[in-house]
């Protein structure tokens, strides 16, 4: 503990690393690559999670769904009035939304029906109803589409309008009025917005039903109480709060990076074996070096210490280098290739920006996964080297 770091030993260690150019270069390259890969994955998950977290904050606080036979079912619009009666509830809105499968491009559009004279549950919608008019002009219905939807439609030659196929097989022609920009691309890319009446017509949705009900509570502390009250009033509902969503996002991403880490362990283990092997096999040059050092008067402890310094310098350098590369790769080049693992497989894949999130804990995490493992790999070989007999190796 109190034996201070010997500067001369450090200097000797650095020189030793430089002397064995190719061996050191080989180890540093592989090691840097490994830390780089690992760090990139963690940086990407952190950024996406951050992005999702901010999306969740914009979501409604409580969502009430009806459950029938264990499956999500349409809910009665009348429930809104009962929910509004609960004290603490600011607002409750029945939402209609769903997915429309566009067979030609094999993608799902998310379609949201909104009502102009209703309190909107999203800020982006409030601005929308101010600027756009969904009322039929000249008898044609209109809608707003997200940028991803617009692109898909255009590549299928739907430039001015789109034909929805109704449940009975007839067509419904809807004019594309413009492009809708949400707060985040994650939210608006695959979205189509139209009036509630049009939505009900396309999907043959009953007037008295809605997809779910969103509830706004003035005081976030009261959410739990309001949830339990709704649950008591309507036992056949499933109630999701924005906190639940946040936790499940965290779980998903922990799971994804956890699975990656499990696969990574294999790579790490291979690396461990390579290093162990590399540092066990000594060239005659190195053996002579140890012999001379011991003949000059170095103790086992000195040689061991020098070897450990050497490994620490190599591993720490590779760690810093790998993390630096990952920073550039993820935040400057927006992580090509690797980010695909996390962004899903839909045709309408969102092309999101990775926001810069710096988390010290991630750095610690990667440190623990790289430096100690490297040092562990060279521990026993170093000891073997350090306890070589001077007379044996010089001979």
């Amino acid at each position, binding site marked *: *503990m*109190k*034996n201070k770091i010997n500067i001369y030993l450090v200097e000797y260690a650095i020189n030793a690393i430089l002397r064995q150019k190719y061996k050191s270069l080989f180890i540093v390259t592989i090691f840097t690559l490994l830390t780089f890969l690992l760090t990139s994955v*963690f940086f990407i998950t952190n950024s996406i999670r951050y992005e999702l977290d901010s999306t969740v904050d914009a979501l409604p606080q409580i969502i009430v769904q009806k459950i029938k036979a264990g499956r999500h079912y349409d809910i009665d619009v009348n429930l809104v009035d009962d929910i509004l009666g609960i004290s603490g509830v600011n607002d409750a809105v029945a939402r209609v939304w769903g997915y429309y499968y566009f067979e030609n491009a094999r993608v799902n559009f998310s379609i949201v029906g909104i009502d102009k004279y209703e309190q909107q549950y999203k800020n982006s919608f409030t601005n929308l109803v101010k600027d756009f008019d969904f009322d039929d002009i000249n008898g044609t219905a209109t809608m707003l589409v997200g940028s991803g939807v617009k692109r898909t439609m255009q590549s299928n030659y739907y430039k001015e309008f789109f034909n929805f196929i109704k449940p009975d097989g007839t067509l419904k022609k809807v004019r594309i009025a413009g492009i809708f920009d949400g707060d985040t691309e994650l939210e608006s890319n695959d979205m189509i917005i139209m009036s509630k009446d049009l939505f009900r017509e396309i999907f043959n949705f009953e007037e008295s039903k809605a997809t779910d009900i969103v509830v706004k509570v003035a005081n976030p502390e009261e959410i739990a109480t309001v949830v339990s009250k709704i649950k008591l009033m309507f036992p056949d509902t499933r109630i999701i709060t924005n906190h639940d969503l946040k*936790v499940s996002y*965290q*779980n998903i991403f*922990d*799971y994804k*990076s*956890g*699975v990656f*880490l*499990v696969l990574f*362990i294999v790579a*790490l283990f291979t690396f461990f074996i390579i290093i162990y092997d590399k540092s066990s096999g000594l060239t005659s040059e190195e053996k002579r070096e140890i012999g001379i050092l011991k003949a000059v008067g170095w103790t*086992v*402890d000195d040689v*061991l210490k020098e070897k*450990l310094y050497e490994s620490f310098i190599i591993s720490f350098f590779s760690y810093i280098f790998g993390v630096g590369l990952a920073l550039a790769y993820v935040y400057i080049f927006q992580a090509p290739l690797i980010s695909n693992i996390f962004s899903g497989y839909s045709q309408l894949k969102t092309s999101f920006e990775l926001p810069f999130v710096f988390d010290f*804990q991630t750095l*610690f*995490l990667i440190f*623990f*996964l790289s430096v*100690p*493992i490297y*040092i*562990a790999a060279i*521990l*026993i070989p170093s*000891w073997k080297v*350090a*306890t070589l007999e001077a007379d044996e190796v010089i001979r």
Partner: protein
Amino acid sequence: MILMPEVLTILILNVIFFIFAVIAFVLSVKIFLKWNFNSTDTSQYKLEKQSFLAATIIKYIFAIKVPLFLFFIFTLDKISHVLTGAMCGAGVVDATVYGTYLLILKIINLYLFAYWLMLHSADMKEESQPYTKLKFGVFIGAFFFFIPELILEGLMFSAIDIDRIVSCCGTLYSSSASSYISNIFLIDTPVLLALFYSNYLLILIFYFLKNRYLFAISNLIFILVSIVSLIAFFGTYIYELPTHHCPFCFLQKDYYYVGYAIYALLFGGTFYGLVVGFIDSKYKERIKNYNVSIFFTSLYVLLLSLYPIIYFIKNGVWL
């Protein structure tokens, strides 16, 4: 079982620790049984070589254990975001039956390994290596604390159930709780404070008298007294909340991570205090240990005392 990168990292390192600890244990037993410094035969010569390996391994484990312990606390805080009901590490520790024992074991092991390291450095300073047998004996003992820690850690992380609701620290550390912790709150504040400061005074007196055994014993008692008073009294001033007693929450960002400083000072002070009593080192060495110990302990007492005093100056009342 939660498949969290942090948890996996800890488990991977635990596997490495386990393998190395077993190697060091086997070597330690051999050395402990057969060590004879005056012998000149080959087996003794081999043992001397092996003692270097064992010592390096133990040093390696300790060097990573200390930052890993902080990382462990960090991880507990992170898991608490996922667990329903938990607000800080206390909820996670309480979520499984293993948590409390694991934490206690971890702290004991920190003291044990640090003690081993002091023995080792004292041993290496002298040519005749007088402590070699003792230090490997100590490791054989420490091994039986260390392996349960690794096993418990694995068990704890696999037993955590995300869907179960756990207790928050507010209910665990409150006077209405029915657990053994609530007994702490039965002690009157003046009595507790008198105990705390008189214990510190005792340490000071023994420091000036340079009585090493009494100094160590008073330090040992101080560990307990200071943790109890931290939970029952000083914690409330850190939170500026008379009902909040949690010894974990102040490790979080909202309190500027002050908990890490508090526990580090307490560990540093009491550990060097114990070293003075346990290791029969040279006079100069011992004086240094005395000074380090009293420095950390005084800083600890000063830091904790400042919280209520500043609170009083700001608000004009006690909590």
